[in-house]
């Protein structure tokens, strides 16, 4: 049960932290349409997170609720990958981060639909419909910015170059994932690693961007070792629960 709990969080925490990052853009998007789009995506991810956390809370027992899991863990207990916690430096970074995650997320959901765990399979079947919209949006923008003006191309390239180092971690396998895959519940992520880089490369090429050759990759998030940005995210995210313990809306 501990492995299943951890496995659920490995998937769900990505959605929570990315939703939080996108939520920061509410009212600050570069245009009205992108502002609405990014917060819509945030809402989808948050909805998915709730489904996962409700399930995880049920497994944890001890009267745990989805809110405890979202708000009352310490940094080391969050299992999201480093990619999703990277800041909204500029619109190129927002789109780059979204794109690199969406392509992965879609492939993960495709496989998770066949999980032996009925609840996870149901969440995946629901989520994949939403994620396909996200992927279309972010891929479209990578192409628009990459194949846009000299300035937009430069900024998009800068973001992809900077974020590239976090892509390998998406395929890092934790102990919980190993165990869950063995039981037919988890997804064998290595199976689509090649396909992931192929699809990414194809879109980058179409966007007239250069595929980074950097082979230096960073990891740690999935095991709770985060970049310095994580503390700031949690300070924002957990503020209300830490200041007014057990408050409800």
């Amino acid at each position, binding site marked *: 049960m501990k492995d299943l709990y951890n496995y659920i969080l490995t998937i769900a925490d990505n959605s929570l932290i990315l939703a939080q990052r996108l939520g920061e853009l509410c009212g600050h998007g570069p245009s009205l349409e992108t502002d609405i789009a990014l917060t819509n995506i945030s809402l989808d991810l948050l909805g998915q997170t709730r489904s996962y956390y409700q399930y995880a809370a049920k497994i944890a027992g001890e009267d745990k609720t989805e809110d405890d899991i979202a708000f009352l863990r310490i940094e080391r207990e969050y299992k999201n990958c480093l990619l999703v916690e990277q800041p909204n430096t500029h619109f190129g970074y927002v789109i780059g981060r979204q794109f690199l995650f969406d392509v992965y997320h879609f492939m993960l959901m495709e496989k998770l639909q066949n999980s032996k765990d009925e609840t996870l399979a149901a969440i995946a*079947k629901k989520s994949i419909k939403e994620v396909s919209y996200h992927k279309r949006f972010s891929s*479209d923008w990578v192409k628009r910015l990459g194949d846009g003006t000299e300035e937009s191309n430069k900024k998009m390239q800068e973001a992809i170059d900077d974020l590239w180092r976090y892509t390998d971690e998406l395929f890092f396998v934790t102990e919980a994932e190993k165990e869950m895959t063995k039981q037919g519940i988890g997804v064998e992520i290595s199976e689509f690693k090649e396909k992931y880089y192929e699809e990414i490369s194809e879109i980058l090429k179409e966007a007239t961007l250069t595929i980074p050759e950097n082979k230096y990759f960073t990891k740690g998030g999935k095991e709770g070792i985060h970049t310095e940005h994580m503390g700031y995210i949690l300070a924002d995210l957990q503020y209300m629960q830490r200041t007014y313990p057990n408050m409800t809306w």
Partner: protein
Amino acid sequence: MSETAHIETHLIPVLKTVSDPEIPVLSVLALGVIREAVEEDGIVKIKLTPTYSGCPAMDVIADDLKAAFSEIGKIAEVELVLSPAWSTDWISEEGLQKMEEYGIARPLSESHDIDVLLNEKKLVKCPQCGSTNTHLVSQFGSTACKALFKCDDCLEPFDYFKCLK
């Protein structure tokens, strides 16, 4: 409405009075989000499925259902189910018509939906003047289920209900 939904006939009149807070002309039945409604030992048990995972309307709908049944002296329990996942195919024909009259364009087929959301074809019918000379303004609209369009004939902006399958 989904063909597989199991809804007891005597509960339908009450269910019809509860609508989507974002699209008030659409009852929860026409929207196809009621998966099951049965009365057991005096308690109405309802299974509700969300349109989109994060749709805030779901909490409101669940509360409205309970309130509607309490008005006729019945207790209702609402459970959220995810599987099978909701599809725009579950919106009834009557629901689609009401939606159009309300000013929201109805979802197209899956392949046409992609065409219009990438602004490659003009297929969405303007709910105001009926023209298909329309273009996409934003893939995402005022709620998760809609995209924003504009009619190039009558110049009115309008919502398009995205296809979800």
